[in-house]
C-alpha cells in the first residue's frame, strides 16, 4: 500500500488522529507520519515514531519473530505503536529496552506495585494447586515471595 499523503513511498504506519471531533485514519510512510505527528502536537507520538523509524537499536538479532502469547510481530508494533498483550513485554524485552531508554530515559520502574493482599494471593495459590494449575501456582508463589521482600 502506498502512503496516503505523498502517494510515492510505501505506507509503514497507521496514524489515527482526532481533530475537531472527527476521528480519521491514514496509512502513511515514515516521513509523512513524522510530519503528521508534529502537526498534531503529539510529542510522545513523534518521539515514538522517530524511535521506531530507525533511531532505535535494531531488534532483529535477538528478538523473537512474534509474541508467543498473542502472535504480535515486532513489525506490527512498529506500524501501530501498540503492543499486543502483557507477555509482549517479555517477548520483545531486548528491543523494547532500547526504545524505552530513548523514549522514557529509564528502563526501571521505581513506583508502586499492585496492592494484592497476601491472604488473597494465598487463597488463589490454594485454588490453583487444587485445580492442578501449576504454572499459575508458581506465578502466585513468586508474587507472595516478592511481596515479603518488598
Amino acid at each position, binding site marked *: 500500500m502506498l502512503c496516503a499523503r505523498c502517494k510515492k513511498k510505501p505506507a509503514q504506519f497507521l496514524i*489515527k*488522529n*482526532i*481533530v*475537531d*471531533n472527527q*476521528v480519521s485514519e491514514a496509512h502513511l510512510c515514515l516521513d509523512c507520519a513524522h510530519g503528521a505527528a508534529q502537526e*498534531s*502536537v*503529539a*510529542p*510522545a*507520538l513523534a*518521539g*515514538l515514531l522517530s524511535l521506531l523509524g530507525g533511531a532505535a537499536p535494531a531488534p532483529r538479532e535477538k528478538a523473537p519473530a512474534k509474541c508467543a502469547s*498473542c502472535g*504480535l510481530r515486532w513489525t506490527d508494533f512498529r506500524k*501501530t*505503536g*501498540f*503492543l*499486543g*498483550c*502483557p507477555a509482549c*513485554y*517479555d517477548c520483545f524485552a531486548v528491543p*523494547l529496552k532500547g*526504545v*524505552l531508554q530513548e*523514549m*522514557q*530515559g*529509564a*528502563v*526501571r*520502574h*521505581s*513506583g*508502586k*506495585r*499492585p*496492592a*494484592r*493482599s497476601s491472604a*488473597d494471593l494465598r487463597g488463589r495459590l490454594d485454588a490453583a494447586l487444587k485445580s492442578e494449575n501449576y504454572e499459575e501456582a508458581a506465578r502466585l508463589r513468586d508474587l507472595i515471595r*516478592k511481596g515479603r521482600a518488598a
Partner: protein
Amino acid sequence: MILSAMLRVKMAWARPTGPRHEVVLSSRLRLARNLRAHPFPPRAPAEELKAALKAVFKASAAAKSLESAARLELCEVSEVDREFLVERRLASRLLISEPAHRGVVVGEREVLSIMVNEEDHLRLQGIDSGLCLEDLLGKVSALDDELAQTLDLAFHPELGFETACPTNVGTGLRASALVHLPGLALSGQVNGVLQSLGAAGLIARGHYGEGTKVLGDFYQVSNARSLGPSEEDLVSGVSKAVEELVRAESKARTELLRGLGKSRLEDMVFRSVGSLEHARLMTYEEAMQHLSAMRLGLSLGWELPADLTTVNELTVLSQPGHVQMLAGKELDAGDRDFLRATLLRGKLKS
C-alpha cells in the same frame, strides 16, 4: 442512569474552589492499568473486550471509593450521550469512536471515574477543582489498590504496570492541570513559556487533549514520561511547574493593567460581556473566547454580570453535546448556536 440528570449535578472540577483556581481550572490524574489475562484493547477480539468489561464493572461495584457509582456501556447510550461524556471529561474521543464493549464508571460528583477498554483495559481517573494533584494521587491510588484486590493487573517486576503503548508503561500515570493563560497570551509570552516546559519533562497542549484547537487560552500541562520516577515525584514535578506558570500568569495580568493597557483590557472584557449578553447566535469557539475574557476580568476583581462559578459552568454547558442534551435532541449547528446564545443571555441576566 439517565445522563440528562447529570446536567443538574455540578461536577466538582468546575467549581472555583480549589487552590490557585484563578489560573488553574482543574487538575486531572490518571493511572493506566491492564488485566493480565486479556490482550490489550487495540488488539483484543470482541469476546476478550467483553470479558474485560465485565470483570472491571464487577470489581468497581465492590470498590468503596466508587460507592453509588454509575456504570455505562457505551453501546447502550445515544451518540449525543457519548458526546456529553467526552465534554464532561469522562470519556475520550478514542473510547467513543468504537462503542462496542467499551464503558465508563462514574463516581460521586464525577471526581473518580474509570474508562474501560480505551487504549488500556482501565484508565482510572480523578478530576477536581484547582491545583490538587497530590490529593488526586491519593484518591486514584486508593481506588487502584481496591481494584487490585480483585483484578489480576499486568505488572512487570522491572518495568512496572504494563500498558498497550510503551509511552505509558511504569507508573501508567499522567498528571495534568488545565490552566487559563489569557495574560501570557495577550502579552505574547505564552508560546515561549510553554516551550520552556519541555526542558522540565512536561508537555502542553490544547483544551481537550491531542489534536484539538486551543480554545479560550486554556492549556493542558502534563508529564511526558511515565517510567523511572515514582508517582509522587512525577506529580510533584507537574505541580511545581504549574505553580511557576501561575506566578508568570499573575505577573503578566498585573503588567497588562498598567498605563494604556488597562483601557485595552477593559475594552476587550466588556466587549465580550456585551456579546454574551446580547448575541442571538454564538458558536462554541466564540463563546469560549468571550467566557475566557470574562474569567480574566473576574480574576482581576472587576464587577461583571456573572460570578466565576457561573462562568466556569458556562464553559461546560456551551459545548455542543451539552447544548443538545439541554434541547433533548440532536440539533444542527445553526440551531445549536441559537440555543447557546439564548442560554448565555439567560445565565448572565439571572
